[in-house]
């Protein structure tokens, strides 16, 4: 039993010792300890180093507000977390914690040289220097500034843990399970409401945990709530933010406190929608600003109280109390009665409630009214203090090993502010209190200002006989913001609280100003000689305390990050060695290499196989929309650029779709299955966009039309069979369809069966060869594919992927929307004017094509390119110029959109968008590449079978 752990006090389990290490040294605490309480109990007062000056620091608080005692915890195997607050780290067997931001050790930190030179590093110093010589900035100044910054070390391994998430609904959400929150929960529970009560600590009870008088009440209340079916209690759960319409995000920590994390989720994100939100987050005590207020051993009085009554740990053997608020006295008296020696209670106030003073005297405690601490002896631990009267007279030294600060209380209105609830300044509290709500929300207990800690003074800093510009009195402990920094910011013209915050970084540390914002406001207020209310308040931002990326990402990890859509035939492609590419949400077979083949070789082989025999291709990802109803043709006529009303049932047509701004957004071949039924196809990536666009026009602009749209993309597997032997392959498998060219010409569709499965058989081609697209119900896709595959063996059937499809279509000059067009290309630019209905009075996008710049000459137009050296394959995206000898920046006239080696033609081919391209046929253009300039001739984008005889074979 260490001298700091008092017998019979606190809630820790003395029967369950827990071993842990801090900076490699072994210690023992008890189950129920926090890392902070356990180290205190072992007489450790030095916990960390500050951000800028590397000053030795101990505990300031006992909870979420802690700015100083930040540690790294490494559980091994990638389970490493920096910047954890020691009071918030639950002790477990084998816990391995390290201090941060020090080298070589916490006790001896070379970085503390910054402290000695501190006067040369005032707020904003970096703006004023490091500018000369200019070259030093990148090489020397910036890297060293960055090396100094940061707290804990960065993680180096991937996180092995998983995270979970859920949505939850309740009538009443209560945040904070202190006495006020518990009362609210009991009340809502009795009213048969569905209640969720959350608290960030491992034990519910809040302040009651440090108040033995409430122990019995707490036990029965929690038992009642735990037994109520309509109440959900969430411990170790932090409400991180308050969003629109009573939506609260919270993170529950599930395994960080366990010696063995196990396999379950580490944390769970709760996305809670509440009918009413009750905020019971309590209040945080304010430190006092005086020279030496950051020496390890100087802490909040309320924290000392918590360590004593909750953990049974005395923060010192001879404790001085510096108060400007009654609550400091109450804490001191309670601790004295519990056996802690109180060296003195110093209070800036000349008069303090007689009852408090009398009780102090009765307990033999020395009191110094109208006085203030003006200095602290000791660097890594408190050895004593210097005290003087407010006017600086009667300076005297006092021995003590801890100093407690009681500067008044700041209600935790963070979530209230997230919800855009209004705040009002309270002189009683010296803080902002909840005023008008913006959501169905109320604050109870201390965070609503409905709790009395007694009265006190509101001051920025304690008076000192020394010149405030000559010493460091800390306001933001972690970021090393001192009172003189605030004064300097004001001196340099920072008058808005946001400027002061950003200039000094006050309130921007990992505690987000929980203990510093109000003191900074008071200091700014006196420096500006304006009331605090006139200076404003920095906005509270989520999260309330830092939360892991993992928890916020929820389930979305690895395979669950985003769906990869696969067709029913995809497994076959995988079994047959396909190399895949990702297109929109889908993965598609790109090519099917044989042993030893690279993509080039495989694609060449696949291309020739289609041209000379037959190839099989999984086209299932193509978007499909079934358009049904008496006005189906009329609707398509309004949407697409070309006419649809005259299309015969059983026939197909290429459809071109524009955005209203006149640019191509999608295309595809569509079939009229019946007078009132069309089977549309869209691009793979465009399916959802096109359906949404069509629904928009139908519902919003033409609600009178009797036509309905249904996505059938996933209803059908689509097997493209392309090549001169395609008909021979399917002939034996198809029933109910006359496949003869006369009965079933190019751009026709028929219904029948294929290997017993009902099919919509399209005779279409994206390759320029005789081709079919076999649509069958998706569940039978793989069966039919394999049947066709088997039947095709005799004909040397070859599976091919998207790359070969791209080459084959390019040989025919067929465009791919999004590759040969880029959202700024009109049908005329793309040479698709044949697909625009000249006689149609209107269609989506028509009017935009009449705008001045769209009809102007010199627009980029889609042409073919043939390199002078047929073996040279241009790079897709390569830029085109007319004068290769001009200086940079060059005048570019276009770029290569598609470029391939054509095995069929034995040379390279390319398509390009070129300014005025249609008028440049036969001209030579130049493609400047690093180190060389390539030349090519402009040609029509049609490289193979221009007359289309093969299509109609």
């Amino acid at each position: 039993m260490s001298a700091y752990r008092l017998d019979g006090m606190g809630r820790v389990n003395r029967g369950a010792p827990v071993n842990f290490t801090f900076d490699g040294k072994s210690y023992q605490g008890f189950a129920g300890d926090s890392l902070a309480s356990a180290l205190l109990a072992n007489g450790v007062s030095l916990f960390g180093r500050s951000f800028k000056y590397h000053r030795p620091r101990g505990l300031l608080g006992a909870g979420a507000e802690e700015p100083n005692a930040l540690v790294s915890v490494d559980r091994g195997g990638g389970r490493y977390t920096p910047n954890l607050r020691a009071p918030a780290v639950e002790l477990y067997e084998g816990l391995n914690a390290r201090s941060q931001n020090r080298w070589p050790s916490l006790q001896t930190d070379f970085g503390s040289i910054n402290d000695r030179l501190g006067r040369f590093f005032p707020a904003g110093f970096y703006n004023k220097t490091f500018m000369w010589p200019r070259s030093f900035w990148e090489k020397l100044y910036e890297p060293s500034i960055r090396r100094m910054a940061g707290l804990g070390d960065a993680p180096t391994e991937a996180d092995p843990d998983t995270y979970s998430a859920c949505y939850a609904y309740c009538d009443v959400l209560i945040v904070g399970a202190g006495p006020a929150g518990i009362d609210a929960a009991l009340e809502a529970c009795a009213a048969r409401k569905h209640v969720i009560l959350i608290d960030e600590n491992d034990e519910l009870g809040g302040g009651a945990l440090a108040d033995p008088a409430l122990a019995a009440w707490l036990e029965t209340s929690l038992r009642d709530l735990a037994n109520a079916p309509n109440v959900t209690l969430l411990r170790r759960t932090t409400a991180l933010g308050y969003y629109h319409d009573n939506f609260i995000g919270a993170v529950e920590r599930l395994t960080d406190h366990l010696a063995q994390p196990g396999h379950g989720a580490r944390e769970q994100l709760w996305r809670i929608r509440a009918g009413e939100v009750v905020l019971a987050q309590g209040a945080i005590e304010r430190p006092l600003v005086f020279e030496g207020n950051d020496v390890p051993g100087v802490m909040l009085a309320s924290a000392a109280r918590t360590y004593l009554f909750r953990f049974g740990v005395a923060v010192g053997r001879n404790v001085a109390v510096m108060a400007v608020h009654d609550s400091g006295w109450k804490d001191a008296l309670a601790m004295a009665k519990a056996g802690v020696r109180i060296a003195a209670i110093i209070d800036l106030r000349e008069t303090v409630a007689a009852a408090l003073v009398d009780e102090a005297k009765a307990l033999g405690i020395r009191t110094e009214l109208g006085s203030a601490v003006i200095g602290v002896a000791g660097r890594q631990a408190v050895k004593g203090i210097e005290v003087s009267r407010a006017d600086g007279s009667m300076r005297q030294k006092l021995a003590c090993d801890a100093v407690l600060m009681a500067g008044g209380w700041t209600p935790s209105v963070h979530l209230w502010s997230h919800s855009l609830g209004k705040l009002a300044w309270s002189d009683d509290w010296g803080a902002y209190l909840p005023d008008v709500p913006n959501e169905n929300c109320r604050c109870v207990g201390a965070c609503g200002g409905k709790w009395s800690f007694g009265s006190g003074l509101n001051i920025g800093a304690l008076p000192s006989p020394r010149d405030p510009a000559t010493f460091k009195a800390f306001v933001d402990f972690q970021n090393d913001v001192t009172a003189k920094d605030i004064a300097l910011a004001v001196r340099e013209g920072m008058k808005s609280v946001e400027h002061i915050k950003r200039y000094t970084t006050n309130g921007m540390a990992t505690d987000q100003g929980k203990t510093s914002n109000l003191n900074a406001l008071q200091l700014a207020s006196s420096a500006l000689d304006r009331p605090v209310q006139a200076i404003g308040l920095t906005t509270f931002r989520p999260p309330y305390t830092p939360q892991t990326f993992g928890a916020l990402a929820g389930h979305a990890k690895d395979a669950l990050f985003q769906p990869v859509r696969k067709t029913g035939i995809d497994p076959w492609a995988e079994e047959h060695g396909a190399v895949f590419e990702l297109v929109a949400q889908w993965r598609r077979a790109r090519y099917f290499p044989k042993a030893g083949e690279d993509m080039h070789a495989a694609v060449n082989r696949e291309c020739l196989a289609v041209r000379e025999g037959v190839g099989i291709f999984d086209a299932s990802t193509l978007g499909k929309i079934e358009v049904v109803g008496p006005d189906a043709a009329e609707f398509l006529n309004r949407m697409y650029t070309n006419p649809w009303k005259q299309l015969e049932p059983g026939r197909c047509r290429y459809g071109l779709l524009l955005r209203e701004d006149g640019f191509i957004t999608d295309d595809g071949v569509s079939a009229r299955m019946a007078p009132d039924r069309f089977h549309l196809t869209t691009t793979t990536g465009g399916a959802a966009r096109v359906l949404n666009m069509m629904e928009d026009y139908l519902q919003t602009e033409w609600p009178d039309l009797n036509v309905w749209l249904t996505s059938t993309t996933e209803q059908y597997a689509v097997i493209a069979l392309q090549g001169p032997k395609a008909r021979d392959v399917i002939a034996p498998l198809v029933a109910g369809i006359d496949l003869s060219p006369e009965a079933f010409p190019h751009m026709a569709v028929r219904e029948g069966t294929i290997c017993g499965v009902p099919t919509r058989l399209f005779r279409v081609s994206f390759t320029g060869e005789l081709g079919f697209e076999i649509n069958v119900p998706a569940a039978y896709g793989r069966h039919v594919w394999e049947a066709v595959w088997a039947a095709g063996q005799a004909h040397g059937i070859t599976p091919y992927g998207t790359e070969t499809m791209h080459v084959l279509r390019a040989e025919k000059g067929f465009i791919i929307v999004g590759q040969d067009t880029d959202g700024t290309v009109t049908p005329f630019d793309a040479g698709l004017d044949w697909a625009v209905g000249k006689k149609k009075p209107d269609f989506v996008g028509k009017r935009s094509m009449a705008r001045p710049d769209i009809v102007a000459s010199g627009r980029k137009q889609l042409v073919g390119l043939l390199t002078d050296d047929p073996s040279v394959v241009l790079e897709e995206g390569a830029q085109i110029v007319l004068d290769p000898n001009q200086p940079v920046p060059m005048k570019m006239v276009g770029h290569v959109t598609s470029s391939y080696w054509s095995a069929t033609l034995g040379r390279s081919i390319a398509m390009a968008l070129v300014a005025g391209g249609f008028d440049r046929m036969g001209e030579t253009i130049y493609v400047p590449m690093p180190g060389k300039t390539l030349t090519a001739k402009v040609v029509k984008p049609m490289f193979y079978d221009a007359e289309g005889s093969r299509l109609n074979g």
Partner: protein
Amino acid sequence: MILIHCPYCDETLPELEFAYAGEAHIARPLDPSGLSDEDWERYLFIRANPRGRHNERWRHVHGCGRFFNAVRDTVTDKFELTYKAGEPRK
């Protein structure tokens, strides 16, 4: 994540079921070809973008699928009301 009342489902539901669809009551001209470039630009691109009361369209895309109209305050993000497509501006 805001809550949105679908006037067709008559349910108030999370935003994740809905898709925003821009300013409301910008009807496509009956005869676009008859419009001047200025008028066509106004239809295509000019938006009120008010700081305050905004007539806007939403689609209950992962629900009943209907487009509908709403009046929402763009400063508070609170809905004043939602109403069915085709109903006059409110």
